[in-house]
């Protein structure tokens, strides 16, 4: 078994070396997306597509004033803006916990009374700080509203200690990445994803093109050894792409991982294992190298966009979210971006389990499909 395994790995790597066409999409796809995103984020911003909730629990005129200021503010810059939507408290809490509301502002009971009696009044911003740029946008909005409310108290003399409303900012995470940093990290993952899928699809399709697949499958070697060999060969073949993408992302965006490198490496590893069967399926279905490459790029890009590459999965409509969970790339991206920017281990077990499940199920599916294909040569 070990002999056959090594033979398959050696053969696969030689093939990859002599037909390295899968490298091109692995570089082009992430950097094209990165470019599109940087243009999108810097020129268009989030637009009115982001919602910020507003919950008013106080029925004094002061509270209504504050609410009106928040609602009627207009952006004077091109930066991410959002529309305000009023909710009652329980609904806002529910949407926020589900993730479909990124942030909401709460004007608590007693707000008006505190201002009338000269005590400090509070407003509270609940914000899901997945992304530094997004959080800052919400905070600026609240800050601006507060300044407007505290009319006349303009910078530089504005002293918060005398202001009727105080701003107290505290973060539950020490640091969150900006949009471009987030995309840089995603680009690294995406290059690995495309490389894993396209590399395997190309290898499998070329075996079908030359019919050489029958040399391997008609041999006495157990099918497990053959499929495992393909999977193991894909690991070095895929990881090589990091020698290109890591420096590019570092040099152009100054992005370096913060989380544990070993955990990050394990995430890449399990991602490759989970995706290789999909590449193999694409190869089996297309059977032509050109179509296999095209198919892999389509598969990777669609899954990437669905899986959190376009917007955090949490704010997608529920139907999309269910679909996203069924894609391996969703879990890879979530794990990767979390550990890339935070030194954390929360949520790792679920993500890893999901990816291992994709690997196992994918391998079973591939084994079945190969069996069927052999019979219809």
């Amino acid at each position, binding site marked *: 078994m070990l*002999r*056959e395994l*090594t*033979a398959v790995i*050696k*053969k696969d790597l*030689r*093939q990859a070396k*002599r*037909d390295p066409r899968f490298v091109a999409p692995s570089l082009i796809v992430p950097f094209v997306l990165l470019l599109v995103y940087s243009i999108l984020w810097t020129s268009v911003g989030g637009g009115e597509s982001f919602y910020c909730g507003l919950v008013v629990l106080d029925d004094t005129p002061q509270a209504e004033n504050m609410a009106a200021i928040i609602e009627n503010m207009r952006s004077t810059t091109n930066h991410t803006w959002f529309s305000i939507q009023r909710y009652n408290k329980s609904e806002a809490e529910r949407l926020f916990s589900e993730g479909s509301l990124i942030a909401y502002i709460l004007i608590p009971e007693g707000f008006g009374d505190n201002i009338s009696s000269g005590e400090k009044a509070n407003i509270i911003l609940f914000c899901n700080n997945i992304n530094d740029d997004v959080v800052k946008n919400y905070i600026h909005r609240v800050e601006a509203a507060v300044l407007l409310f505290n009319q006349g108290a303009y910078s530089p003399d504005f002293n918060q200690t005398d202001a009727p409303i105080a701003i107290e900012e505290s973060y539950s995470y020490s640091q969150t990445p900006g949009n471009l940093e987030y995309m840089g990290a995603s680009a690294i993952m995406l290059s690995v994803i495309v490389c894993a899928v396209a590399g395997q699809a190309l290898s499998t399709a*070329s*075996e079908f093109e*030359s*019919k*050489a*697949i*029958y*040399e*391997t499958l*008609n*041999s*006495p*070697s*157990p099918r497990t050894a053959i499929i495992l060999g393909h999977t193991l060969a894909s690991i070095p073949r895929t990881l090589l792409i990091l020698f290109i993408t890591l420096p590019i992302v570092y040099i152009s965006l100054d992005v370096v991982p913060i989380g544990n490198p070993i955990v990050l490496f394990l995430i890449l590893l399990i991602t490759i294992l989970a995706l290789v069967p999909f590449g193999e399926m694409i190869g089996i279905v297309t059977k032509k190298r050109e179509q296999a490459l095209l198919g892999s790029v389509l598969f990777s890009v669609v899954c990437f966009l669905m899986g959190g590459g376009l917007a955090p999965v949490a704010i997608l409509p529920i139907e999309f979210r269910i679909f996203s969970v069924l894609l391996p790339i969703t879990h890879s991206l979530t794990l990767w971006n979390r550990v890339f920017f935070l030194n954390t281990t929360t949520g790792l077990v679920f993500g890893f389990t999901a990816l291992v499940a994709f690997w196992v199920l994918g391998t079973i599916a591939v084994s079945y499909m190969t069996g069927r294909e*052999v*019979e*219809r*040569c």
Partner: protein
Amino acid sequence: MVIVLPFMVEIRDLTFVYDGQVKAVDNLSFNIEQGEILGLLGPNGAGKSTTVKLLMGVLKPTSGSVKVAGLEVSENLAEIRRRIGFMPQETALYHELTAQETLEYHAELYGVPKNEIDERISRMLKLAGLTDRKDDLVRTFSGGMKRRLALVRSILHDSDLLIFDEMSLGVDVQSRNLIWNRVRDMKREGRTILFCTNYMDEAEALADRLIIIDHGRIITEGTPRELKQQHVGEYLIEVMVDDFEHDEFWLSQEIGLDVDSLVVGMTGSTLITVKSDDGPKDLPRLITAMSNAGVPVKQVSMREPSLDDVFLSLTGSRLRD
């Protein structure tokens, strides 16, 4: 004491249907003896490749049984495959490997003892006439070179039963001669060989015994000589005449010989093929008889029948239409 050796290959009532529709092999039964070289001859689509894929266990029989060396194929796949050297019709070579690497890969998959690999590979490369091209990628090889490489790859793991599917498909004349000679060498070494072909000259040149199949069924079997004698005769006399207005039956009566076929050519002349067991005697008699019957002979020739004539006589169509 008498030792009864099992047949190398025993096929019983074998049927295979593709996708529940195409009956590619239809109730086939035959045996191959140890050391025999058996040719499976038939036109494209006759079911030859399907039959050998069933033998290799690539396909599972729809019904019937296939045994190799007494073992039921579908129940002993790994064991069977180690005992068979198989060259598929499609050569199935990795284009991105060199000739040397191709053979190394095969040796590993088939468990050739490590200490024998190098020696065997260089011998195989020599047999295939590829020694000086051993480090070139298969992608750069001609059809003949690929076929030669596929042939030696199939004998690399030294098995007693060899199966070659269309060994000279897409191959130049030199390669074809080399391949035929290698196959004869293997026969001399005592191996059992089954080959599929739709070239009658190949069947005639190599086979001890032939099975002619069409539409998945055995039409006839025997040695090439037997088949020709049985179905055609020792000689075929071809007569060309102008403005022939009669039919086969009439002519057979007039000349007292069996008319095999009658083909009207484009120029209006007719080619008549007549079977004969004693050509030198029948030929002059035939010319006289035809002249007497008012059909002057324009041109005449005599030849030994080919397997194509056997096929034509049995099915009414040619092998390679």
